[in-house]
């Protein structure tokens, strides 16, 4: 049984936000609309944070795609009074929407602030509801929602592999964010498979886990920006 994880190379990421909209369309995340968005009620399972340091003209920026890190020991799981969130055997922190009663305790507990509350009924002006992906449940007012690592795509990939009578291969599962990324900054796969691309990236000297010191055991790895000097020699011949 795989343990799903992700590596995000911040040196490749250029902040284009294709992942953000890809996630929205794949997972039926309705726009909050201008009034609700102004209140900070936009739901974004995947968002890109912008960390800017320094003063003009010496400004350094880092874009960080932020999504649920699918903790090994998830604070959101233990605080939920109705067990609406749980860790599945493959390492996903999953949300059972009909069980959620909207205490928002999980959002309080999550150190990564990647859980979102539905302040209103998601609205799709007809006929925009036609774009709803039938593989993913539409949520409703008063409940929490979050990144699922595109569990529907994991299922589909398993189904396809089963039909072909073969084990699931590295690269078979691509969450919507990873698929859209032109810079190939997002890599998804089985952390238990030492040969998988994500395993290898997680071992990189640049790899680190966000807020690892909290003991949450995140399954998303970030690869720090590389240093240009030092890594490029004079006029390469190849």
């Amino acid at each position, binding site marked *: 049984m795989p343990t799903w994880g992700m590596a995000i190379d911040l040196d490749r990421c250029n902040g*284009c*936000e*294709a992942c953000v909209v890809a996630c929205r369309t794949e997972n039926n995340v309705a726009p909050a609309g201008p009034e609700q*968005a102004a209140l900070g009620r936009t739901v974004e399972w995947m968002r890109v944070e912008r960390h800017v340091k320094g003063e003009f003209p010496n400004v350094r920026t880092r874009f960080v795609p932020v999504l649920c890190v699918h903790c090994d020991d998830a604070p959101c799981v233990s605080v939920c009074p109705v067990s609406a969130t749980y860790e599945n055997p493959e390492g996903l922190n999953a949300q059972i929407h009909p069980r959620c009663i909207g205490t928002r305790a999980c959002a309080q507990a999550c150190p990564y602030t990647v859980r979102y509350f539905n302040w209103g009924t998601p609205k799709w002006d007809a*006929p*925009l509801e036609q774009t709803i992906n039938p593989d993913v*449940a*539409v949520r409703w007012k008063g409940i929490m929602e979050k990144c699922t690592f595109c569990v529907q795509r994991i299922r589909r990939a398993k189904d396809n592999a089963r039909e072909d009578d073969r084990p699931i291969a590295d690269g078979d599962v691509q969450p919507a964010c990873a698929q859209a990324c*032109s810079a*190939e900054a997002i890599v998804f796969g089985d952390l238990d498979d030492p040969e998988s691309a994500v395993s290898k990236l997680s071992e990189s000297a640049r790899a680190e886990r966000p807020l690892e010191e909290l003991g949450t055991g995140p399954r998303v790895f970030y690869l720090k920006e590389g240093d240009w000097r030092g890594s490029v020699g004079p006029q390469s011949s190849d």
Partner: protein
Amino acid sequence: MKRRDFLKTTVVTGTAGVLFDACAPPGSDQIIPILIPEEEFIPGVEEFYPTNCVECPGGCGLLARKMDGRLVKVEGNPAHPISRGASCVRGQALPQAMYHPDRVRGPLMREGARGAGQWRNVSWDDAIERLVSELAAVQEDPSNALAFLTGALRGHRLDMVRRFTSTFEATRHLVHEPFGDGAVLRAHALTTGVEEFFAYDLENANYLVTIGASVLDASRSPVRFGRGVGHLRQGRPGRRGKLVAVQPRLSTTAAAADEWLPARPGSEASLVLALAHVILRDELYDTGFIENRTSGFEEFRARVLADFDPELVAGMAGVSVETLERVATEMAMHGPTIVVAGDAAVTGPTGLGTAVAVDHLNALLGGFGKKGGIFFNQDPPFSEWPSLETVVPAPEALFANLTKESDASSGIRALLISDTNPVHTLPSSAGIDGFLSEIPFVACFTSFVDDTAQMADLILPESTPFERFDDDVPSPSVGIPVATLSAPMFSRPLYDTMSMPDVLLRVAAGLGGTVAEAFPWASYEEALRAAWSGLHAVSRGSVTESTERRFWSRALAAGGWWDEDVALNADCLTSDGLYRFELPALESIGLDRTAAGDTSRFTLYVYPSTAFGDGRSAHLPFLQELADPMTSVRWGSVVELNASTASELNISDGDLVEITSDTGSLRVRAQITQGLRPDVVALSAGQGHGEYGRYARGRGVNPFSLLQATTGSDLFEVPLQATTVRVTRIKETS
């Protein structure tokens, strides 16, 4: 939700997988909830249809995902040489364009006064009849002219428009594209004889310098450049390339870059030549390339060494001598190096000079035809359509230059508009309102009543890329011949729409005579197929088949044709085949070495939006809801001010400010940033639509309204960083 309702939902969901609670959004009766155990989950059948993205010049090949007979998502086509399976924010939001609630659902005829927004639904027969009678009136009187106004069309849509206009005695093909980078194309033509965007071998480059061009935001092809820069950084173990961005604002590109050089707007050409100066002075250039494949080098060297010493340029550009010296040396020592110009830097008085200087810098570094350098696009070997006997190609001209003329509209009896929205993206000083009002008949091919269509007499609803046949030749490309092909993914369009080339075919048939003879096809599909038969005939590339019929169906299924085995080339098409160190275009550069005198005025810098481009994607709610990568603004606009400027003007973050130029003013909230020159204020293009559906209408502000239109340049219509403005805080009463 009441607790009882909640329980009902729970039970229903758990047993039948169906939601019909009043709170549930429409469409959720078809949704399989995530909690169904895996072994019971039966996914629906997904189908993918290749299509092409028309939102930006990038020309990505896409796959549209269809489930339950609906378009639910798009992905990049993994086989397509440009997109390689990826897409950008605008591509991802495309399904919303098809199912947008405010799409035009059938032809509309104007009822009230122009611009009043009163429309009458008419049939396509009536619409075509009206078009035919209006165009027949044009033909009857030799003093009447037809004008066809388009954006920068590509593929055979462009050929259809050219052919159509060529069949009229007096026609003009007008082009309006606010971020068209026309100066870059002209520079390429002057220096290499190739009037097309270059293909860059980013994957094998080590050093990329962008001059004004926000290549990762919105210019030309964010997907292509995103992939290239990602690879340049981390695609080759042990070898990490560097990205340097030269532009007055910290764009997404500049933020992602390793180094940002905030050069003063208008100084870019001098800065580029100062870099060239260092390379020439220290003899770091590619002598082999210079000696064997260029002409005019000595004159160029003399001019640059005489006039563009970094000591002279640094103060004017606002970039230190040390930085210029270092970057120039790095470029030469750590190649292959690519320099790309675009956006605001290639507009205004020095725009062409900047673009030519950048070409010269690439030539000094010997980048042409080198791995990790620059190659020329190769056209797919399409079959030519039957030639026309009376071919008088309609002259193509920039739209804004026409509208500025006092008698601009004289003689134009009918105006057709497609794929452009000049009422939104031209300054009011360009005189477009007056121009349109004087033309007796205006028809618009469009999916939405936008700012321009609002002024039309007849609206011809365009099908979306998912509902029509189309092809595309991406530019910039990747150096190999690439043709994208798209077919309808539904048996009929969602609404009563028709694609522009098909309308032209019907109108041509209605007009009869030479016009009808010029269009011997029953449908645009047939016209495309005639052209694509050339790709079948060459029997190479990604699709080869024994018969033309099989070739066509396989090309449709593959989303196009490309030939990855073809050798890349960078052979100049100049008369002697040599790269030309063109000097006259550099004449206008570098004379102004003093900073702007009036410190109470700021240069207004207008840039394309990551989400909206020039504004054509602003109608999609997913993109309105998206936080801008650099300003985090959703559903609106801000003006960016440097922190020191803001404190001098006593402006705080979020204050309402008024931006006033000589031609207009607007009010918008201020955002204080470190990522902008103190003498510049920045506004994003894209917002401020008067009309463009419910999500775009009245959102944010339109910076084009503040700009000065050009006086007669044939390279760009609107200088994007040459207008000065005043900024004042507006006291708000609570």
